[in-house]
């Protein structure tokens, strides 16, 4: 879908701001991390849409397409990541939006992180990852897209 978004850029050749959707997936309400990250990314200059807690995989995929984002940042502390994240990836496929990159942060054991990556998640951040590192990885994911890096 980001192929669409390239067309809405103002003047040709001018890079637009990268857009990131931040959401809490599933039922857990631990939104501190999601809010801190959303605000930090905004301060770094990204366009950020935070849609809050209790979002289903389907709601997130739809919102991402509707908001025309480059990246989805998922925060999860419920331990349900191995069920909900693959579902999100599935919904993105169904919406032909596989070019939207998914990054995940939260309490994710090491083995699960490896499995999520093999399923198509671009990055998994465990607690204590400095925001700089997250931004650096986001920039890498954005390389090749007609968007500003931060």
């Amino acid at each position, binding site marked *: 879908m980001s192929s669409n978004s390239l067309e809405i850029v103002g003047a040709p050749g001018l890079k637009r701001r990268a857009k990131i959707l931040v959401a809490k997936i*599933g*039922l857990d309400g631990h939104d*501190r991390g999601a809010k*801190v990250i959303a605000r930090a990314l905004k301060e770094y200059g990204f366009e950020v849409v935070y*849609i809050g807690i209790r979002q289903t995989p389907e709601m997130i995929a739809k919102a991402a397409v509707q908001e025309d984002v480059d990246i989805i940042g998922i925060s999860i502390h419920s*331990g*349900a990541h191995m*069920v909900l994240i693959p579902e999100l990836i599935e919904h993105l496929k169904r919406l032909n939006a596989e070019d939207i990159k998914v990054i995940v942060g939260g309490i994710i054991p090491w083995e699960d992180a490896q499995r999520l990556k093999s399923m198509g998640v671009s990055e998994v951040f465990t*607690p204590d990852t400095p*925001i700089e590192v997250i931004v650096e990885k986001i920039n890498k994911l954005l390389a090749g897209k007609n968007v500003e890096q931060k």
Partner: protein
Amino acid sequence: MTFNKEFIEKLKSLIDQWERDKIELGYRDRLDRFTTDSGIKVKTVYTPLDIADSDYFEKIGLPGVYPFTRGIHYNMYRGKIWTMREFSGFGSPEDTNKRLKYLVEHGETGLSIAFDHPTLIGLDPDNPLAAGEVGVTGVSVATIEDMDLLFKDIDMGKITTNMTINPPAPVMLSFYVAVARSRGVSDDRIGGTVQNDQLKEFIAQKTWVFPPRSALKIGIDVIEWSVKNLPKWNPISISGYHIYEAGATAVQELAFTLADGIEYVRAMINRGYSVDDFAPRLSFFFVSGINVFEHIAKFRAARRMWAKIMKEWFGARKKRSMWLRFHTQTSGVELRAIEPYNNIIRITLQAIAAVLGGTQSLHTNAFDEALALPTEFSAKLALRTQQIIAYESGLADTVDPLGGSYYIEWLTDKIEEEAWKIIDRVESMGGMLNAIENGYPQREITESAYKKQKEIEEMKKIVVGVNAFKGELLEEEVKIPLFEVNEEQIRKHQIDKLKRFKSSRDGIKVKRVLAELERAAMRGENIMPYVYNAAVSKATLEEIMNSLKSVYGEWSEPILY
């Protein structure tokens, strides 16, 4: 404290000389500014001058005596060690039952139930939204039968149980009481706590279901019913823990928690109760953080402030109404995923703060909780931490051992002063319910959370192994054995059981009692007798919650960040 004039003058001149000498001798501090985690500036040293204006009898006094700064009981842990109450729950009720018994066998003295996310927001395990979450971060309890299994072979008349549950509190309390009664436990022996702190759900924790005003009404129903029926039950645990974990400072945690408490007291008074009828049953729940002295001072200030609020604002006469009795949990957000074994030390320091602060009961986290639920091993280690503090360290041998410390007394006064400012602000908005609807505490907490993160990123706050003293990680620090739950299997087990349960009951009766509940809720009656009746008539958690939702509606949270 009262010092004579001569003493004060002598001390002042001594300090002046000392300050000059310090500079002359070239002593330099390694930081420009030392502060507590709440941002309170900390001086080089404290002396009687710092508490010279503080009246000993009014502010400090003795344990067991108003304003209870030093503790609510005369002899505190010399009489009875705090209750060791480890928050536990995972999988099916049968799974958690085993863990509870394991902990009791190892010396735990109270139970505390962690429910899974579907249960916390009132969903049965067969709800599609529960997929992936059944039994994962807590135990799945959807029926009276689940509650019975959870307490199999546990004497509910002897041990006290805390249940961390909020919007579904009326349902879970009904399940618990019904099971206890069915075993012949009389109401005056049913002891424990249901969290039932509806207001803080909107500020933190976020397991809200109903809109704030209805949630408050339901919470008060639980208090009213419990006060009438269960003399030993704590029908609310007014909680700061989640507020701190969501990002608040210790001062904000204290202020918002007491402000919530004030709102509940007013709501009960508005129902026609006199404060001494119910206040003795109110209980509290705070965090204990790594910034040891700040948390000790916070606990001391909390007791003094609540006693004053109850006595002076609400005219309480009973001593018990003035007591701030509280449970403490060591801070989870202060634990780190990197080098997780370091958390054992962090938890020990946090637990020491709770004990020196005079807690009535304590949960120590397990060191692996920044990664997963605790294993049997890490849960036992957490319990052992408490036992070592209680029985080996001598920390429990005298009451309020830090009382009279110039620093601690100064800091207690300072935290109290700062917290009153926030409470005044909430009062000026017309109380906590209005403040929440205005988003005031939510915004303040979000702001503090962001500030704390920045302090770590900018190295203003050192976190060992995280932003300082980093090194190559050893394999055994990265791949630690973690607790795993097989969610699919648990969900299937819970759903099968639920199906059998539903087919074994009188469906027409269930419909009737749910309709009665809805009508009572519409009339504005106390819903508890009707919820209880539904619970014993075998309505499920979700069915009862749906009836309540049909009357009260559901909350949708404004997005703030």
